[in-house]
């Protein structure tokens, strides 16, 4: 991140290269249920970012000795597709991908009621199809929605977005060029329901004042994003409602697509799809 003054990233009127104001999010859309096999999934598009989140679990953990006696383990796997960036990314997982996987996993662990599923794992796969700055925050935002889609009980959704500095000015939600040419980046993961910060990183050079302003603008942005997350989950609820109006016997072979009634999108969905955290012998043999 170089504070390269030669590029004018924001004009006198406070308008950025892509036409946004300083505290404006990029266009965001969130679609639920995009991966049929997963227990829950979401696709987020934010600027040119395209990211898929899929949740599998709670399910048995292999090798077993890694299981936690009193709660579920949340494992995240953030991966960039080779073609998601300008220069082809090597398919081998990078140290960056491992670090991001860890901070996302930590953040989600703070809101999931993991103690409900001792000795299991909840696996969250994040595949970046196109990267445009802020993939870690968009991934966390999508992951949180995918967990809700999977019916995993949570204390609240996490909305995640970065603030940053361009030409020494605090702005929300940096896109690719701003990320590269700007002088600071502050990714935030925030749970509006709880008013708690669960992901926070920074690189660049910030005065304490700039940091405080950035933090505030990021929190505001996260709150805006949260509304979009809720809408996505509500939309699904509406869709299911519409479907349920026409009564129809669920197909026996496809237990997965049986309508999941999500009365309120976020908090403590009563029963997750996988009711029995300890899979039966049959399941186990299938998984091997």
């Amino acid at each position, binding site marked *: 991140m170089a504070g390269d003054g030669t590029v004018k990233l924001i004009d006198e009127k406070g308008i950025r290269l892509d036409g946004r104001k300083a505290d404006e999010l990029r266009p965001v859309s969130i679609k639920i249920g995009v*991966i*049929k*096999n*997963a227990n829950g999934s979401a696709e987020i598009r934010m600027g*040119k970012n*395209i990211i*898929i989140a*899929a949740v*599998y679990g709670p*399910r048995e953990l292999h090798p077993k000795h890694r299981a936690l006696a009193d709660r579920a383990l949340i494992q995240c*796997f953030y*991966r960039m*597709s*080779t*073609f*998601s*960036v*300008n*220069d*082809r990314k090597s*398919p081998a997982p990078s140290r960056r991908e491992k670090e991001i996987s860890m901070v996302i996993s930590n953040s989600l662990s703070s809101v999931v009621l993991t103690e409900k599923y001792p000795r299991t794992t909840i*696996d969250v*796969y994040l*595949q970046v*199809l*196109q*990267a445009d700055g802020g993939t870690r925050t968009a991934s966390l935002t999508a992951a949180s929605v995918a967990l809700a889609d999977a019916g995993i009980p949570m204390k609240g959704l996490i909305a995640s977005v970065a603030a940053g500095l361009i030409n020494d000015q605090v702005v929300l939600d940096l896109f690719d060029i701003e990320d590269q040419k700007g002088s600071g980046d502050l990714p935030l993961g925030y749970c509006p329901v709880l008013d708690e910060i669960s992901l926070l990183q920074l690189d660049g050079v910030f005065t304490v004042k700039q940091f405080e302003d950035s933090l505030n603008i990021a929190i505001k942005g996260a709150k805006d994003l949260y509304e979009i997350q809720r809408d996505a989950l509500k939309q699904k609820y509406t869709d299911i409602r519409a479907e349920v109006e026409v009564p129809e016997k669920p197909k026996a*072979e496809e237990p997965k697509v049986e309508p999941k009634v999500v009365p309120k999108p976020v908090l403590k969905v009563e029963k997750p799809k996988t009711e029995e955290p300890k899979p039966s012998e*049959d399941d186990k*043999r*299938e*998984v*091997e």
Partner: protein
Amino acid sequence: MGDKYIISEIEKDHILSLLEQKKRIDGRTFDGFRDIKIETNVVEKAEGSAIVTIGDTKIIVGVKAVLGTPFPDTPESGVITTGAELSPIASPYFESGPPSEAAIELARVTDRTIRESHCVDLSKLCVVPEKHVWILFIDFYVLNHDGNLFDVAALGAMAALATTKIPKVKVLEDGSVEKSEEKEQIKIEHYPVAVTCYKIDKYNVYDPNFKEDRVSDSRITIGFDEEDRIVALQKGYQGTYKPAEIMEIVRESLNVSKALRKELMKSLS
């Protein structure tokens, strides 16, 4: 798969008893395909890209074009290299880690369909012989696995390739090369598609869903070009075929290939 997943005998019996009555679990004919959807140019940052869905199987393919040096024994040819990831995002049966045998087979069979059909003239990817050629990395990610990966992968690879645009290149005086902003569509010489016939007991079906795929005894994937020539073939799983069966499947699959190519061409027009 056969080996890897144990399916209840009951389910297998159910599928078989339907097949005996000429029926499939979702009501299709033996050679009936599920809905096919091909979207191209889905990832701007890739030089070419496509998402193909057949039923609930979904694969994304991206093409990255990188300038590199040619192999010493083919100094005037560009390079195509194909990789597949069967990420656990796509199925509860996939595991994290380095490419599995199944991923390697999927990548290599698709690679052969592309390569042997000569759909891209590699000599046209040469910029400066011995020094600079285009390397096309075709990478695909299975996003949801509901059977029939080979056909979907080949459609995706062709759709991505056929929409690939690579920068024009200027050769400077000192022999180095400079990419221009301007891009140019690569020329496609042939339009191969892959068709896989799955054998369950003695029945041959096409485009299986995951359950049908899983109970299959064997499969044959055949790549056909638009002149009805065979450019690749792979028998998979552990089952076997009588010679006459093979010829029957070749003829049947050739018919299917025409329908698949029609979908491909529609998406490219």
